[in-house]
């Protein structure tokens, strides 16, 4: 038997597969959470003002939502299957502790799928007001789904709500598990991230079109509405991120040490930007004296735990990945904040977006940047938790499915998702081009555009 001859339990392949499929799915999940809000807002404004530009925008975004939601729904299902196929050791024991939020998320996902069907296919069948109302559950349930799923990840970082007796699970409080210490900061951080990815991501599409010369009202609004949403959320996200980092300092000191490349426990620790960690030291970093102590403990002389506080076997092995991902996320977060401030300043001064093409260029890259920041954040938290799958409770190596041949599944996933990426982008591009956007949309243009 070929497969049986392969290597036994392979945590690297399993981790790679999970990371790859999760990192892929989460981009679509972000749009699944954020895009309904954008579509509903625009449809509502279109309904109130009768503006055909807004009505056409809402329809075109809804069509993209239909595609992204479908691909997101199925790529999310793969994750549920992978939870068992890859992490049988985790799920066979701890599945019940983190099951409740998934069950509630299942209900929320049901609500999303049902109302998305009604909303998209009912666009021209339902009265406009009923139609608008039928879209609200999609947005509410989308945000709720994100909340419940992330609570399960938060539990892996700060496990709570169970009692062990001689290594046996003797009591479970599923509500305490769901509302573990990391739940608040992590869920807020992720929901904001999802909304920002949607805002900057959608705006960037229109910024590219405007750079190519399409500066009509349709493209301007197509950029301005999502960009404004992103700009409003960017400062909130920085506060939420700070809140999350302080939680890491309290509950996962080894992760914080990896995020900062801090090898030894230090009083008055500096904030290190960039650099390269090797031989147990962070080299070439830009250091802000006492910065880390101030940020993490609000006290410039506070002691910050270093990597040397845990035995080598319990330290995150890829310190550079964690540290640089964290820095990248923070840098992009401040970049997006600056972009928002630029927009706010121009709007305050002359009720218009900044006129320079550099602004459009910045918006054009902000979508990819927002996705990169979100992915970097996930890399930070997931790689920073290593070698644990459940922090200080279960190691990744003990959670993985011991069956041989798991690595073949990983290669298949990479191949399938590569094809899926290319096709999804090609179909989205085809959708934007197959029905041309009129220079000055009329009522008939909005009404004749089919959503499904």
């Amino acid at each position, binding site marked *: 038997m070929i*497969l*049986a001859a392969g290597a036994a339990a392979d945590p690297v392949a399993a981790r790679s597969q999970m990371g790859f499929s999760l990192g892929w799915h989460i981009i679509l999940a972000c749009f699944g959470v954020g895009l309904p809000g954008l579509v509903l807002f625009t449809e509502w404004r279109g309904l109130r003002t009768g503006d055909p530009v807004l009505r056409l925008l809402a329809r075109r975004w809804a*069509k993209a939502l*239909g*595609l992204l939601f*479908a*691909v997101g*729904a199925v790529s*999310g*299902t793969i994750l*549920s*299957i992978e*939870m*068992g*196929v890859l992490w*049988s*050791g985790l*799920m*066979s*024991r701890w599945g*019940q*502790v983190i*099951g*409740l939020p*998934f*069950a*509630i*998320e*299942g*209900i929320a*996902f*049901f*609500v999303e*799928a*049902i109302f*998305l*069907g*009604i909303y998209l*296919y009912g666009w021209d*069948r339902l009265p406009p007001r009923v139609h608008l109302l039928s879209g609200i*559950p999609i947005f509410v349930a989308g945000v709720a789904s994100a909340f419940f799923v992330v609570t399960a990840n938060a539990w892996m970082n700060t496990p709570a709500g169970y009692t062990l007796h001689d290594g046996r699970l003797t*009591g*479970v*409080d*599923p*509500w305490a598990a769901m509302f573990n210490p990391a739940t608040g900061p992590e869920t807020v951080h992720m929901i904001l991230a999802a909304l920002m990815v949607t805002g900057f991501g959608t705006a960037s599409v229109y910024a590219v079109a405007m750079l190519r010369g399409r500066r009509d009202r349709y493209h301007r609004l197509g950029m301005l509405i999502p960009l404004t949403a992103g700009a409003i959320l960017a400062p909130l996200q920085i506060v939420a991120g700070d809140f999350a980092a302080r939680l890491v300092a309290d509950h996962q000191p080894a992760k914080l040490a990896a995020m900062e490349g801090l090898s030894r426990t230090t009083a008055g620790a500096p904030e290190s930007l960039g650099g390269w960690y090797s031989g147990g030291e962070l080299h070439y970093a830009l250091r802000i004296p006492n910065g880390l102590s101030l940020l993490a403990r609000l006290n410039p002389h506070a002691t910050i735990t270093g990597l040397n506080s845990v035995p080598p076997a319990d330290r995150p092995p890829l310190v550079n990945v964690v540290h640089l991902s964290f820095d990248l996320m923070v840098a992009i977060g401040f970049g997006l904040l600056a972009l928002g401030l630029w927009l706010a300043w121009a709007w305050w001064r002359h009720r218009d977006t900044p006129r320079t093409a550099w602004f459009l260029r910045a918006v054009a890259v902000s979508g990819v940047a927002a996705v990169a920041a979100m992915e970097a954040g996930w890399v930070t938290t997931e790689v920073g938790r290593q070698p644990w799958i459940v922090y200080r409770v279960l190691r990744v190596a003990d959670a993985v*499915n*011991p069956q*041989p*041949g*798991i690595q073949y*599944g990983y290669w*298949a996933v990479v191949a*399938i998702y590569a094809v*899926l990426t290319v*096709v*999804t982008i090609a179909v989205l591009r*085809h959708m934007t081009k*197959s029905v041309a956007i009129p220079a000055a949309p009329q009522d008939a243009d909005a009404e004749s555009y089919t959503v*499904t």
Partner: protein
Amino acid sequence: MNLANAAAAVLWIGVTAYALFAGADFGAGFWDLVAGGARRGAPQRALIEHSIGPVWEANHVWLIFVLVMMWTGFPPLFGAVASTLWIPLTCAAFGVIARGSAFAFRKSVTAVWQRRIFGAAFAFSSVITPFFLGTVAGAVAAGRVPAAVGAGNAITSWWNPVSVMTGVLCVVVCAYLAAVYLTGDARRAGDQDLIARFRWRALAAGAVAGVAAAAGIAVLHGDAPGLAHGLANRGLPLVIVSAVAGLAALVLLWRGWFVAARGAAAAAVTAVLWAWALAQYPFLLRGRLTIAAAAAQHSVLMATLICLAAGAVLLIPSLTWLYVLFQRSGPPPARGVPDRGR
């Protein structure tokens, strides 16, 4: 009834709903596959797209429900099944992703060659997904899954007579359900040609499903005598119900009572699933893991069941609205065959 049994029943309700609703969507993909060339098959494909477009995502969620219910309510069962059967489950996962995205892509493109590629991917994956899920069910039914994580054989646990037979049976049953449902949809669309085609297909698929199920009993006797014994005893009343409902569905189809035929076909499939459940009760994994042994803590089951009950209050009216909205609003019905099923 204790909580663990209640949770098992809820899990099985999820499996039943997935089979009846998503199964029909997979079956529709099967008929899409065999609908013929781009021009000849166009009306059938249009009806299929019209019928499953608004509902397939909601129907698909039952799979997630089943997975979540398994790991929440019966974590050792989930760990055992998912680890030993990782190959068919991974293949089914690929089928799920190909089916869903290809269907969404096909709606969004216009060129014939593009629609052909996506259509083929949609249709092909609609056949392999229920096959692999069926082999998983067959592996559990045949007692090939040990209770420990990853303890079974990666290949023979699902590549054996009972599992393969169950996989094939799943594909046939999906096609049968889809043809029965689509016959009714074709009548609402008022297309005589489509009514005739799908009615004929439903009758054929029903006959094949009946033969396959009968053949399956023979395979079971050889390969999984324990299950065969259970079906012949505790499961027998439901096996009989299934056979009667299956025959009744064929008669109703023949007579043109399509709505009633839908009910009968769904009843036949439901009865088979619950006959299997009864036949192996109280075991989840025959002879190895009982419902009581695999069940989660009382606190977890209670919280989950309460949340699901609350969720049902939201979901049942919502699902009803979804189905009613799109069952009523096909193209205006043409005159012709009177709808005697109503």
